[in-house]
């Protein structure tokens, strides 16, 4: 029983950082390509940033 609880805790500690990083990676993709359909306003807000770092834009 203790081993199972320990494993669950370990799994959570491994999964949580991965989930946080995946969430930020998703935000990075939305910003990099300016996907307004996912986050309205992101295209205009990060327009100059996107061009500066060499990502394609109109």
């Amino acid at each position, binding site marked *: 029983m203790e081993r199972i609880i320990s494993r669950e805790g370990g799994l959570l500690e491994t999964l949580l950082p991965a989930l946080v990083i995946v969430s930020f990676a998703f935000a990075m993709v939305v910003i990099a390509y300016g996907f307004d359909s996912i986050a309205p306003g992101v295209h205009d807000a990060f327009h100059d940033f996107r061009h*500066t770092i060499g990502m394609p834009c109109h």
Partner: protein
Amino acid sequence: MQSQSIDWKKGIMLGAIAGIAWGWVALAVNAATGAFQFENSVLQNLINFAAGGAVFGIVVSGFLSLLHERLPFKNIFLRTIFISTTLWVILRIGGMLLSSIEPERFHLVTAQTVQGFFLAIIMGCILGFLWKIKRKEA
């Protein structure tokens, strides 16, 4: 496990700090090179570049925390530069695909691409520097 937990939280914090600094460096570099003529005000760009940079920095630092034992390099600078440039190249390839699908919306500019690649290297340097300082303190 406890030390791993502290490591990734520290990594996110370092990534955010490095990313904000990188965002402002990117702002200054583009102002100097003129690769893109800014359309927003300076104050607006200071905020947007800091926010965008923080997100990019957290992702690079997060991947470093997760993958540092699997990377082929021992040197922290090589590791951070490798991760930041690899992520940038992946995003850039995605951009090329989007450009081929929707050419009227996504345009590629060579000068901005070259600038972006060097900025990815700079991101790696800033993050590597912060990780090195933190390691010495620990």
